[in-house]
């Protein structure tokens, strides 16, 4: 079985083969892998190097905690990986980015309006949660296509707040 695991921008091809053992990017590795009880605590001995981690599955990725750092890992088997590759090279990318609320809270300000041109990193929404004001920023360059909230509104986690179109920005 061949998997492609993606961490940040790095991809690793990991092969789990009953006969050949475990290979990372075609290099065989000596692996001992144990789960501690039913928990997410895992122990890995990789060429005798001991790595202790907590691993949990999220909706679309795996969270791996090693020595204080949380790694977001996408694991796809080879077939799914290829399919996604094919799809993403097609011209069907809609070029739409949505800024969503990362947590429940109250909208303090929305410093953008429909039609505004924004750069990646520009402040688009200020959200108050846990007694702190948090700035939500544009994930890409583009034009504001819709604004769903106003100052004072209560929002839930993952609620869509602001839409940004990338294509219009390129055209203008």
């Amino acid at each position, binding site marked *: *079985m061949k*998997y492609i*695991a*993606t*961490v*940040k921008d*790095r991809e*690793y091809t*990991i092969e*789990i083969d*009953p006969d050949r*053992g*475990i290979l*990372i990017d075609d290099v065989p*590795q000596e*692996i*001992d*892998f144990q*789960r501690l009880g039913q*928990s*997410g*605590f*895992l122990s*890995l001995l*990789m060429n005798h190097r001991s*790595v202790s*981690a*907590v*691993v*949990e*599955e999220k909706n679309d*990725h*795996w*969270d*791996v*905690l*090693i*020595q*204080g*750092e*949380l*790694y977001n*890992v996408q*694991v796809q088997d080879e077939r799914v990986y290829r399919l996604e590759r094919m799809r993403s090279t097609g011209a069907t990318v809609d070029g739409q980015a949505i800024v969503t609320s*990362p*947590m*429940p*809270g109250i909208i303090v300000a929305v410093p953008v309006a429909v039609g505004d041109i924004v750069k990646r990193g520009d402040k688009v929404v200020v959200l108050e*949660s*846990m*007694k*702190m004001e*948090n*700035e939500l*920023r544009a994930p890409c360059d583009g034009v504001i296509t819709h604004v769903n909230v106003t100052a004072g509104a209560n929002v839930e*986690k993952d609620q869509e707040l602001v839409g940004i179109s990338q294509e219009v920005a390129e055209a203008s």
Partner: protein
Amino acid sequence: MLREDGLLVKKFDKLLIANRGEIALRILRAAHELGISTVAVFSDADRNAPHVRYADEAYHIGPPAARDSYLVIEKLLDVAKRSGAEAIHPGYGFLAERAGFAQACADAGIVFVGPPARAIEIMGDKLMARATVTAAGVPVVPGTPIGQSDEEMTAAAIQMGFPVLVKAAAGGGGKGMRPVHRVEDLPDAFAAARRESKAAFGDDTVYLEKLITEARHIEIQLLADSHGNTIYLGERECSLQRRHQKLIEEAPSFVVDADLRRRMGEVAVAAARSVNYVNSGTIEFLLDRDKNFYFLEMNTRLQVEHPVTELVTGVDIVQEQLRIARGRRLRLRQEDIQIKGWAIECRINAEDPYNNYMPSTGTITAAHLPAGPGVRVDSGVYVGNEITPYYDSMISKLICYGETRGEAVLRMRRALEEYRIMGVKTNIPFHQHMMDSHRFLSGQFDTNFVEERFSMDDREIDRAMEAALLATLAAHEQSQRAAQIVAPGARDTSNWKWLSRWERLRR
């Protein structure tokens, strides 16, 4: 005994803790050690919290929002009455610095583990505090009195020299505060500070202070009994802050020597005496490059960062608080206080250091605390703990002790690596990065360091391959198991055989 200043001091055997989280646990521990029985209170969100399980008794006080539970004075006094608690410890935050609460306790015949209401009131009002301590000979940052016109303040700014800080009289937590570097920027700063202050505090009075640049935040821990004895327990270095929230504290400070410690300590004692202070308190100072120090404010309560002082002095500050509230004399004299070794505290917050320190909510799914020599964890975190937007994002404190600063830092690095919290993002990587930072190691930082000269971007993450492998093995394990559950007949191997094949893989 009800003192003239309204402070009720008497022996008590049952204590109500009007707080939650790690600090409630800290107080419960001290009370149990002294043989005092304990009463906890909890909101709907905290039924399963450790403080509820740890206390002798616990009472529900309403919905999760603090204004409907932990901040409702009547509910707390009612629980005290129903449970027979004779004293209340407010912890920090919530009602700890509300003079009205201290007064209400005294009026109800309940010991408030803290200072007299009047001391809270004076120190809680920045201008009154400034005037009071100035009269006692305590140096304050040069500034304008309240009630000056914009023209008068502008003239004063030119005279004291830029940069200056426009501050809201009613302000706090950085709100209504603006640094100004040029005279032409003053009108806008006045307007903005007024607007912010009006919105946040319903008052638009502003005044000016000289902005001390490259300043360190150094504070002195005090203990005062009800018999007029006041001592200082050395300083804490709290310069590593972000948006006026402290992140890392240490004791002693890299820049404070024995002479400066004594001078700051004596001034702090004078400031406390100026309001007839009783119990644990802290005087916060700004220390400039030339080692001049200026009174900033007094925190009339137990501080989050008290453990670093406990570790280097050997004094249990919370136990002392309880003894003082029971009317006992301080057992320690000033000459008994010796600073030994070095302690560092990292505040573990549920926030993402890689995404502008955005608070992170969720349910704790795994928690493994560091341990071993020189490591102390004051934590309220538990598996199943839902981190909600209702309360502060600080979920735990990790405190490490060493004979020297270097040893404390090495311990902290080791302990941060051991700490595992899953379910929310934490600022542990921030602390790790700081412990590796050259500026931190050499003690070269001021209160602007974190915000202006520290970045997570240059942190190198080197366990990506292991992470990829672990996630893949976990995914593989799961898919194999799923395949067997869905279609057991379709496979010619039993679970046991599959397991043994898995075992073979690991060879």
